[in-house]
């Protein structure tokens, strides 16, 4: 799977795509492969304040639990309801239909600290 150029990435394997001050957040294809079969996704409710680099929820695979770290600070404005009933979509379409949350950014400058697609792929290669 390719890593979209218009996403930014974290070293903890989340992605964010920002449009009009709202960032859509997910986990990367690399992350879903490492986790294996995903069976449960725990996400915050809309209205929750999140902070860059702090856990915003968790993803559980058959084997293990992994925290999801927020790439940015802000407020959760939407949660992907699809994942409550079909968590396995995260294995199938992690960069698309299986996005996790949308966040209204409180400090867009934080985006500058995230990785580009090329940087992220280079990071995976090391």
């Amino acid at each position, binding site marked *: 799977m390719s890593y979209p150029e218009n996403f930014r990435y974290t070293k903890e394997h989340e992605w964010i795509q920002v449009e009009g001050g709202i960032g859509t957040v997910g986990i990367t294809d690399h992350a879903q492969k490492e986790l*294996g*079969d995903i*069976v*449960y996704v*725990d996400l915050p409710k809309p209205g929750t304040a999140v902070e860059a680099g702090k856990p915003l929820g*968790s993803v559980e*695979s*058959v*084997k293990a*639990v992994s925290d999801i770290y927020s790439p940015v600070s802000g407020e959760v404005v939407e949660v992907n309801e699809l994942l409550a009933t079909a968590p396995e979509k995260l294995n199938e379409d992690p960069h698309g239909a299986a996005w996790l949350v949308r966040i209204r950014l409180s400090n867009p400058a934080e985006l500058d600290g995230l990785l580009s697609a090329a940087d992220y792929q280079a990071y995976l290669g090391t």
Partner: protein
Amino acid sequence: MLKQIPLAALHRAAGAKMVDFGGWEMPLQYTGILDEHRAVRTAAGLFDVSHMGEIEIRGPEALQLVQWVTTNDAARLADGQAQYSGLLYEHGGFVDDILVHRVAANHYFLCVNASNQDKDFEHIHSQNRWNCTVENRGADYAQLAIQGPRAAEILQKLTPVELASIRYYRFRDGEVGGRPARIARTGYTGEDGFELYIAPADAAAIWQALLDAGRDAGLRPCGLGARNTLRMEAGMALYGHEIDASITPLEAGLEWIVKWDKGDFCGRARLERQKAAGVRRKLIGFEMRGRGIGRDGYEVRVGGRPAGWVTSGGPAPTLNKNIGMCYLPAELARPGTAIEVVVREQPVEAVTVPIPFYRRPK
């Protein structure tokens, strides 16, 4: 440096995700835990469990030593018969849980847990008042397990040994793929199947021959991930989780491997006192009712108060539920008790249920 099982390179080449398991580099999964789990329940799965240990006890008084160090009654074994048993310390806690195979009256073959094999050997050696020969043979055996409803049919293609004549918990020495193998009808998945003890040098050839023989029957290579979900559904104990040095068989629901009428054994006095006084905590199964998965080590509360801990927990793919096992005070450890499993600081509703969670259809 991780210890390498004989087939590690072959597993990597097959696309396995490798992990550190108690110091061994082992395959966690190939195609995915759920896929492998279902293959074992519906067709068959092939596991490389070469990290497991083997200890051999020989001598005219081999039975006396085996009887002293284990809780089950090895005197009931005939040649070619195996038995699940406990190896206990004087204080009644587990050194390990093991399989005892009687090869001959003066020869017992023990299959022990990978990370416990040195400790088990030292323990047995220290208890050897009968001048038996006790050998740690872990490096001399590779072990493959073929498990599932089609395991016998697949394995039969590769061996002249008539598998239908080997009953559950029996074994036979013969050949698989033209190479010597001890073929035991045992396993750790809750399904019918066989565990093969073979020479490390033969492991790659036998592994490949089994995969080829089972391709049309749906045989899949399986990793430790599926091994864990399968054994958990079948309610089988895992050392370091359900049992360890601080847990006795009576607490772990394993009194059936303690044979009180067999005579004295290491740890017996302590177990007798515990039985007379009544155990204070017991292992019980649970099913999650609320959203969330109880994992190993999570706190269990009853009526809002800390009461125990989860020993193993996760999804049960066959049952489509989130299950687990936990220790609770004995008076609470009966099926139907409402409990809460603390999942990342949030108490989530669960209910206790009997173990095992899954029994294969007869």
